[in-house]
């Protein structure tokens, strides 16, 4: 898996598009003056030559900040999320895309300290899907921290996932930062009364806009565990929380939502710096609530539209994906934990320039270091 291959593919796509345009003009199918045509051809040639395209896999990552006097040592971890694997015989594309993300992350130099897998490894929680995913993730060079998503969970309510990857929620410390991985996609029982089969239950949860399911929640038991876990941690220690669903209320209809977000935020507010990294939303998504910074991860399977009801104020939308390009709006990325404990979130979108949502942008409430503006908003 050579990342160069993908860049070549992108260049081929740009060249192909240009060829189509020229063919149409030559055939007289498109009304366009000759002078305009020459100008456009020149522009397109420039673009094809890679003038505006930076291959992200070779972007140098500023892992160690210039300022390393006090506080903690900055470090970087990578993420891959939401691969939604079917069996390879049914859908090879999703498999190839996860492999592509693995190749991207393996190509990072220097290597990240670890890799977060953000959940939804499988599409329908099938053993064959989970095992296929596990096998692909084994190719990663750096250690992997696993998180569970609803697509992994609701076929057997987590039995196999737990057997394969361990506890669905846990905490660990790394270079002075306290990390917590939550299982945030519990749902109130909607299946027993309706006598649904495991597959029916799974299918309902897998439907993003399927209103028959319940809302995601961490739940009382796990909240109590979180309270006890955090009680041991000094309030000045930087805190990074992983959750599959966003730990705030963004859009209820698609479960871009955690029902008990407020009590969880209340547990996080006493800390000096808190960052939540979440999956599930398949898009560039940014929010800040008091001392908590929130970042959504990209998917390797498909991008999701932004919620029709509006966005968190600090979110700069990623451009609407081009449907004719099958890996648009997808990707992986890397997260640098700075000296302050807050992070710079990097989105390595396939076929696009990398996009960084920095700590400075969030800390300044959007007045400084804003990411490039959206040119093709979701509608």
């Amino acid at each position, binding site marked *: 898996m050579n990342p160069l291959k993908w860049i070549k593919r992108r260049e081929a796509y740009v060249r192909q598009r240009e060829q189509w345009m020229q063919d*149409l003009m030559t055939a007289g199918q498109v009304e366009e003056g000759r002078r305009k045509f020459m100008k456009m051809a020149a522009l397109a040639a420039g673009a094809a030559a890679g003038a505006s395209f930076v291959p992200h896999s070779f972007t140098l990552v500023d892992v160690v900040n210039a300022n390393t006097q006090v506080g903690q040592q900055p470090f970087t971890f990578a993420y891959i999320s939401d691969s939604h694997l*079917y069996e390879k015989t049914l859908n090879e594309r999703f498999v190839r895309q996860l492999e592509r993300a693995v190749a991207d992350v393996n190509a990072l130099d220097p290597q990240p300290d670890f890799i977060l897998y953000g959940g939804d490894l499988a599409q329908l929680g099938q053993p064959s899907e989970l095992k296929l995913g596990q096998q692909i993730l084994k190719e990663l060079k750096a250690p992997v921290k696993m998180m569970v998503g609803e697509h992994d969970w609701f076929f057997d309510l987590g039995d196999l996932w737990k057997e394969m990857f361990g506890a669905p929620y846990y905490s660990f410390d790394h270079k002075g930062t306290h990390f917590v991985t939550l299982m945030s996609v519990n749902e109130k029982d909607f299946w027993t009364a309706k006598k649904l089969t495991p597959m029916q239950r799974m299918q309902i949860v897998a439907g993003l*806009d*399927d209103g028959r399911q319940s809302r995601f929640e961490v739940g009382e038991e796990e909240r109590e565990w979180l309270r006890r876990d955090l009680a041991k941690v000094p309030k000045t220690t930087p805190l990074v929380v992983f959750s599959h669903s966003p730990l705030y209320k963004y859009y209820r*209809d698609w479960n871009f939502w955690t029902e008990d977000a407020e009590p969880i935020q209340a547990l996080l507010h006493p800390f000096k710096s808190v960052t939540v990294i979440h999956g599930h939303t398949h898009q560039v998504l940014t929010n800040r609530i008091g001392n908590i910074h929130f970042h959504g991860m990209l998917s390797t399977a*498909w991008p999701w*539209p932004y919620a029709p009801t509006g966005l968190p104020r600090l979110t700069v939308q990623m451009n609407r994906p081009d*449907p*004719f390009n099958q890996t648009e709006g997808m990707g992986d990325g890397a997260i640098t934990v700075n000296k302050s404990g807050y992070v710079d979130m990097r989105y390595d979108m396939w076929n696009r320039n990398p996009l960084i949502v920095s700590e400075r942008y969030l800390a300044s409430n959007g007045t400084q270091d804003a990411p490039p503006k959206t040119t093709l908003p979701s509608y």
Partner: protein
Amino acid sequence: MKKKDWLKISVLGVCLIAAMTFFRVAHAQQQALPKHPPVKSDGKNLIVQLCDGQTNIEVPGVDPNGRLTAEQAQAVSHQLMSMWMAKADKATADAWMKEANVATESNASQDAPKEKKPVARQGTGRTDKAVSEKKESKQLVDFSARDYSIWDKELAKEIDYGNQIFHSDQLIGSTNGIACAMCHPNGANTHPETYPKFQLQLKRVALLRDMINWCIENPARGTRLAADDPKMRALEAYIMAQRKGTAMQPGKH
């Protein structure tokens, strides 16, 4: 006499009887029309009489031999009717009101919660512009509540079928497990209001159905649908229903 002559006589007889009956009925009808006594004007103003022959109204400022403008005539007729309503017995007045209201309501029911305009007018015995402006006349339609209910239900069925196809990889004929709703929950980012528009990749101006077929063939690896395929029609119905009220913007990219 021969058989033929009998026939002639009897045909003639039937004709005669028919003719007599016709003239008698016509005559009787002519007789039945009430004769209204002419209304005498004092020479200054025109006096108009209602067809009941009893209700009269004097139009100030109009010469007895002059003509009313359309506006004046409308006001006069409203005024005469409300005077008649005030005099008429309750059953007759109610029957008339009911008829007038039905005509207004069946028009109004097309665009739901509109304020109902009162049909009855209070007579003041004088004509003025304010009275003529009160009534907003509407044309009668032949659609009943049943019509509206059938339209709604039939459309809902079509949209619901589209909804099922949109959410099922099997109904859409996908060969790789991908359904429309996986990338387009609730039809989001399908923007049917932006078609037709030129798509370079299709090398022509694309309609919504071209893009539906593109998604079926490419991401979902299925077989394209004919433009009039029941599934295509239902998908279009579902997708468009999700964008109800959105302004049309053909050509928007």
